[in-house]
């Protein structure tokens, strides 16, 4: 019968292992998911607090903002600039927020 045949085949495969895995080393890599790591407005790294927050000692509240164009700035720096012009300071495209965060 067909079922018997497949069971026998499975049993056969179990006994004859091609190889055994003795050791398994995983290596993970990561990098910041940003195109530009310095805020082009205040010229401080985006992962550090902007100049404004540094001088007001509000380092923890300083977050990064990414636009649809994938350019990133400090949210504080960008919120001041959009009052002047709603364009990305780097590529001049219309500024649309993609996300904010650290």
């Amino acid at each position, binding site marked *: 019968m067909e079922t018997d045949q497949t069971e026998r085949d499975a049993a056969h495969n179990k006994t004859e292992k091609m190889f055994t895995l003795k050791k398994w080393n995983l290596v993970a890599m990561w990098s910041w998911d940003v195109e530009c790591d310095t805020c*082009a*407005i*205040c*010229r401080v790294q985006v992962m550090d607090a*902007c*100049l*404004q927050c*540094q*001088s007001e000692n509000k380092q923890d509240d300083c977050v990064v903002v990414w636009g649809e164009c994938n350019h990133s700035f400090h949210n504080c*720096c960008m919120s*001041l*600039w959009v*009052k*002047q012009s709603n364009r990305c*300071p*780097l590529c*001049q495209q219309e500024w649309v927020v993609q996300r904010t965060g650290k």
Partner: protein
Amino acid sequence: MTTPARRRLMRDFKRLQEDPPAGVSGAPSDNNIMLWNAVIFGPHDTPFEDGTFKLTIEFTEEYPNKPPTVRFISKMFHPNVYADGSICLDILQNRWSPTYDVSAILTSIQSLLHDPNPNSPANYEAAQLYRETRREYEKKVAAIVQESWNDDDDDDDDEGEEDEEESKAGS
């Protein structure tokens, strides 16, 4: 107390010193970081060649969200420079971006000397001569290049240059 604008200007100054663009130089004035003095050397292959044109750059606390006021102190004859030395340049007005710094401003003005835009003249005579009688334009420019060497009289520019190369023994 330092403000973000002042700290940004310190960064601009640092960058200008570490990575100086060719043919321009600038530094904050002695007691006021919001007021800079700069020099643009006339670009090669232009009638401005060999000129040393002095400028002032005045920043506000809104920098870099607002552009500074840039003005030639040396006499200038250029289609896009007004009689009072102020400059008609898009990036200093409606095309300003907060990513620009002193280095970018000075190199943009340097390239404006190279490529005037006679279609939006600030100096009508210069624009007309540039378009119609280039020889006359070049003569007028040659005169202000000469004058640019003489404007040291008003302030004492006798600081000794101390960066003479020291000979290193046994290298």
